């Protein structure tokens, strides 16, 4: 199924349909992760691959063009059609040959299962007091890595802002201060349902955030779900209304605050006499300290991810709105 979906991506020419199919593909791969007993990963892939990524792509599409151009040169030269195929199949054969050396699927004796991991599985329960091993590795044992990831996301948010944001029309007003013309106001049913649904989504995001130690979840997923609730609000009630609730300026500060919470937790550990991100010193009992540290760090990650995702969405759709306004400005 997965292969078929991916294949169809090649043949479908309409860009819009490709994006739909891509959303399907993400959903399928999330199901695949689930069947391989990785609920944390499936949660992330579902909310990001099937939710955020297609929305962003649609935003780009709205900014560029709806259809992939009907190719003017219908007959490409044979060489340019064959060359990629040859390169791809050669690489594929080489990679499949390489898998022959790999340990069999689900083999308990494979080297990947026998080095650091048994220690994590045996000790993490006693050392951090948190049942979800994925969370404890993410926030505690591999804390530096996750700090790096948070910074990468922050940097990507900044990059998109630098490329697309900070726009003004010369009168000193930024792009988001214009009146909104296009929204789904006239869909009354959607209006009411969203009003019921959005608090539910926010509540669920908080559940995923703070229950992440006991069940699949954590800062990354919660941040995305939180952002998705606001995106739904913006989609239904118009960007203008969403900006009133969550101004882009506030979001920019929140991006910074999220990263600072993470980094600050580390500095706090330094001040209290431990190593950087060594949570044991945060409380009299090391286990308790670990718990506090992990919750703080997850909170930082959640805030960062949520605000970056919202910023991304607002930037793209604000830009799209602006291009429409420009056209209408020409018209009047």
């Amino acid at each position: 199924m997965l292969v078929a979906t991916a294949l169809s991506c090649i043949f479908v020419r309409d860009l819009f349909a490709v994006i739909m199919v891509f959303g399907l593909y993400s959903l399928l791969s999330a199901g695949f992760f689930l069947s391989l007993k990785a609920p944390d990963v499936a949660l992330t892939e579902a909310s990001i691959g099937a939710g955020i990524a297609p929305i962003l792509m649609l935003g780009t599409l709205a900014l560029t063009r709806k259809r992939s151009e009907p190719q003017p040169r219908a007959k490409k030269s044979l060489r340019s059609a064959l060359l990629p195929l040859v390169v791809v199949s050669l690489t594929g054969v080489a990679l499949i040959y390489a898998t022959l050396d790999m340990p069999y699927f689900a083999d308990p004796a494979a080297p990947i299962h026998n080095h650091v991991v048994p220690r994590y599985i045996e000790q993490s329960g006693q050392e951090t007091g948190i049942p979800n091993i994925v969370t404890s590795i993410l926030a505690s044992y591999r804390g530096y890595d996750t700090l790096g990831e948070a910074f990468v996301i922050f940097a990507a948010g900044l990059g998109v802002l630098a490329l697309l944001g900070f726009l003004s029309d010369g009168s000193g007003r930024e792009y988001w201060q214009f009146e909104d013309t296009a929204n789904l106001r006239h869909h009354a049913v959607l209006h009411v349902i969203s009003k019921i649904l959005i608090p539910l989504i926010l509540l669920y995001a908080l559940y995923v955030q703070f229950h992440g130690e006991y069940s699949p979840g954590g800062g990354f997923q919660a941040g995305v779900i939180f952002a998705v609730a606001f995106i739904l609000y913006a989609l239904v009630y118009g960007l203008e209304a969403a900006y009133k609730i969550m101004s882009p300026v506030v979001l920019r500060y929140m991006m910074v605050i999220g990263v600072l919470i993470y980094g600050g937790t580390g500095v706090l550990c330094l001040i209290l006499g431990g190593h950087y991100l060594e949570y044991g010193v945060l409380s009299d009992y090391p286990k308790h300290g670990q718990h506090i540290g992990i919750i703080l760090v997850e909170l930082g990650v959640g805030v960062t991810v949520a605000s970056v995702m919202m910023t991304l969405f607002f930037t793209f759709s604000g830009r799209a709105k602006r291009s429409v306004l420009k056209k209408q400005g020409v018209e009047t």
Partner: protein
Amino acid sequence: MTLVFGLFNYWVAMVLMMIGFYILIASGNLIKKIIGLNIFQTSVFILYISMGKIKGGAVPILTEGTEIYTNPLPHVLILTAIVVGVATTALALALVVRIKEAYGSIEEDDIHEKDGSL
């Protein structure tokens, strides 16, 4: 037979990877290229998660009475990789928008032509 079943998951990942790679280099549309890149990325995720699977392993959340857990380390790596992946995708899409504004097209051939004429 054990060879086929033992390595089947890896092969699926490889095939997906090659499909993504093909879309990446063969199609001229920039958005489609990004989708190809994403498929490539997902295939790597699938490879990692397949490696983490243990026969009879339970979900990596500590419960009473379970002995074998699925390997949690690849899960952690992939979890963060997905989020970072979407962030970089967004960056790439932003670049596409700027390219469209600068060149008036998102087809690779057109862009090359314009570059040549400048």
